[in-house]
């Protein structure tokens, strides 16, 4: 199930809220767990069992870790648990990719049926690893209550697309949490904001990007290529950050507080800053659980660069099993290594040009992320700079601009902290009421607009019989 659907907003959510607030506190986690399983099953009924098996195994590993007395034993248990978790993720996510790679590299003919990727497996595996590593590091005790651990891993707001919630960040909230109308109302605001980002901006921008990326590179003008990649750059931000907003908002409605996952990444002045603002929960996961254990930057210079390349290649592959994702990750590894070698200092002297440079570099990265293969990605980039001689502007570019200029302008404005700054403006007490009323009207106008778009998206005139 997805948040931006009629099924979720008008049926699932009212039901889970009604039951959640109708039962005493001791049953609230059970309600959330049951509904989280239904939420997952709605999209992936067959893989619910896989997720339950993963939870049971990790529950066992946690207890085993806790009971292991010696550090050596603990390290063995953790290594075993990591191998098992990564093995499961690797099988479902990378087995076909690996077989294809082996076949092309060694000219073999190994065969493997296509393995469907269970939704959210990358997220729940990382949740489980976070739990085990936190227990190993004694930051938290092993969770003896299976339901609570299950809820941590499956809690529906963050189950299928994050943010990756660290176990130490929610362990206490699983046991006790305060509820307030203020927190619930903030959750509503955040949920509506996220929903609006997804439906009012990301979806229409996605159509623009699809239109361009489905065009053969032989027919792509520079104008179309730039419109396409700008649209995709905005789409992926509003899609992903919108989802995170919805997750954080839903968490608040149920009394949970999750950390921020995006902080206006497109205003960054360096690539390092971009990654401190983009998918923060993933970046910090890799930093704390991979980069720092490898030695981080407090090692010899060559080891630091090695660590960077390892982390960024893994970050790329985490997003998907393809060489374009690995290249995308490595591309950022190289850029960050260059920044650490002095580029960041140089860029900072070029203000405000450094903003533009970062944006162009990020957009070029998104070309690899969006393209199906290297061939198309490189041809697309060549079109962006008119190296293929397809012209600067064509009818497709004009058509996309005419029909989507309002979405593009709105999205560019919304990608800056302007709205956030406006919210922070402190008005006089006399104007406080007006500000609150305006805010209320703003959020519910957005919600009404979302509902209109959502319901219209199911409007599907059947033209066939008209012919």
């Amino acid at each position, binding site marked *: 199930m997805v948040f931006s659907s*009629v099924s979720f907003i008008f*049926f699932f959510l009212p039901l889970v809220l009604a039951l959640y607030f109708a039962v005493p506190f001791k049953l609230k986690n059970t309600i959330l767990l049951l509904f989280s399983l239904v939420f997952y099953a709605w999209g992936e009924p*067959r893989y619910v069992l896989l997720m339950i098996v993963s939870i049971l195994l990790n529950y066992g590993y946690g207890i085993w870790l806790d009971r292991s007395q010696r550090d050596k034993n603990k390290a063995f248990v953790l290594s075993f648990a990591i191998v098992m978790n990564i093995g499961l993720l690797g099988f479902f996510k990378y087995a076909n990719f690996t077989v294809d790679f082996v076949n092309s590299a060694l000219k073999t003919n190994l065969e493997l049926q296509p393995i469907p990727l269970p939704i959210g497996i990358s997220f729940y595996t990382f949740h489980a690893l976070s739990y085990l590593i936190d227990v190993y590091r004694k930051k938290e005790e092993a969770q003896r209550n299976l339901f609570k651990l299950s809820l941590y891993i499956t809690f529906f707001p963050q189950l299928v697309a994050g943010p990756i919630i660290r176990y130490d960040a929610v362990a206490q909230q699983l046991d006790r949490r305060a509820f307030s109308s*203020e927190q619930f109302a903030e959750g509503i605001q955040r949920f509506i904001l996220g929903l609006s980002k997804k439906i009012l901006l990301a979806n229409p921008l996605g159509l623009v990007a699809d239109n361009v990326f489905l065009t053969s590179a032989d027919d792509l003008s520079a104008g179309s290529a730039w419109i396409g990649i700008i649209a995709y750059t905005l789409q992926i931000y509003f899609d992903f950050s919108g989802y995170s907003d919805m997750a954080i908002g839903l968490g608040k409605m149920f009394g949970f507080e999750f950390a921020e996952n995006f902080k206006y990444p497109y205003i960054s002045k360096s690539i390092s800053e971009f990654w401190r603002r983009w998918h923060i929960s993933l970046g910090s996961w890799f930093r704390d659980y991979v980069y720092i254990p490898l030695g981080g930057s407090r090692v010899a210079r060559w080891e630091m660069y090695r660590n960077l390349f390892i982390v960024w290649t893994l970050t790329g592959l985490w997003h998907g099993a393809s060489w374009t994702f690995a290249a995308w990750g490595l591309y950022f590894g190289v850029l960050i290594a260059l920044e650490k070698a002095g580029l960041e200092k140089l860029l900072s002297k070029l203000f405000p040009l450094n903003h533009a440079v970062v944006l162009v570099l990020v957009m070029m990265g998104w070309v690899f992320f969006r393209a199906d293969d290297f061939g198309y990605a490189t041809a697309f980039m060549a079109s962006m700079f008119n190296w293929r001689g397809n012209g600067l502007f064509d009818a497709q570019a004009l058509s996309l601009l005419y029909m989507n200029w309002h979405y593009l302008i709105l999205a560019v404005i919304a990608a800056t902290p302007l709205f956030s700054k406006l919210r922070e403006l402190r008005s006089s007490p006399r104007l406080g009421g007006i500000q609150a009323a305006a805010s209320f009207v703003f959020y519910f106008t957005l919600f009404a607009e979302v509902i209109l778009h959502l319901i219209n998206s199911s409007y*599907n005139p059947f033209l*066939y019989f008209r012919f």
Partner: protein
Amino acid sequence: MNKSTSVLYIAAFLTIIGGFSLASLLMPDRNFSASENRALAARPDSRIDSITSGTFFKEMNQYLNDQIALRDQLVALYQKQQGSKIFDVMLFENLFRANSPQKPEDGTPVEDARILSKLVLINQKWILPLPGKAVYMQNIDAAAHKLNEAVKFAADQGTESYFIFNPSRTKALMHLYPPFLRTDSYDRSKEYFLSKLEKYVNVVDTGKRFDSFTNAEREQLYLETDHHWNIAGAFIAYQEMIAQLSERSPLFEDVPMSLNEIDVGQLTDGRFEGSYNSQINDAVNPDQADRTTIYEPRTPLELTRFEVVNKDGTHPPLDFNEFYGFKRGQSAYTYGSIYGGDRQKIVYENARANNELNVLLLKDSYMNPLTPYLARHFRKLTVLDNRYYSEFSLRNVLANEHYDLLLVAFHDDNLFSGNYEFEKKNGQ
């Protein structure tokens, strides 16, 4: 946020999501959406196999989407919003680049264009589909192959065949789109389709006659708010068909009716419910839309047999004059209500024809206004629309009764629809 404001947020939010939920559960389910022209989803059965395979959840999503309370009203509101000035895709064009002056024969200048639910509303008058820019070669290959096979089989049965290609509205009115939406993909698709037909397929391309008209003249041949042409366009195509068949067929010789044999009028009152206009909740006022041409032949068609089978297989006891033609004084008209509408089968027997030819016509809805005109020229004309048969076999039809002529008549934007399923088993 203070407590009272937060309570207000909670109350409003829960009222909206809970209200829709409750209203949808309490209101009776609807079976059909008239504006979408499709059956709405029914509540799915919860079976173990459908739950484990995931089909239950997909069907439940569709059901909840289709049956949500106030759906039609909210869609209408959305379309109204998309029709507002801010969404005029000619806004920049009009602001920064004045339309170059046009000659009258170039047709209506585009001054205003809004996109509503995949349709383009031009100058608050014309409604056209959002044009596609692709040539669907694989689909066309498959459809052309089926047509080649059908014609070959007919020849084996001793039936002479003609494929009649009528000019579609989208292609004929391409000049009415804003410049950046115009495309030659419809021309390319048609050319590609024709290139895939075997030499033994006789093509009667009525579109060539339309191509000789100016843009302004072509605008007079199509309905403004509907998928189809008007009777003026259909009549020209009829004349072209009869003239070309007469010239090329060794079996048939006749002349088409001329305009002198027709009383020409115009729709002056009543709503015209164009099929496109209905999809966007009458964005063009139906009381003013399509004040279209009405043709009434001065010599009535005299039939010795007239039989109609409806889309659902029922046989209504219909008189021809009830079935076809413009009836004055009605409050609402549609393309279907004036021109007989889509049927499974129509049989015309005309003893006054100048020949004894038994003719089979397979057609799409563009041909609906023409079938009575064609019936004047043949002893017997059987009209079949295979889309309305759950099972259909042209081979069986041709094998069970001898036809002298087989006419397959589709419009040239209908290049790979279900019309090409000449051999159709249940469920296909």
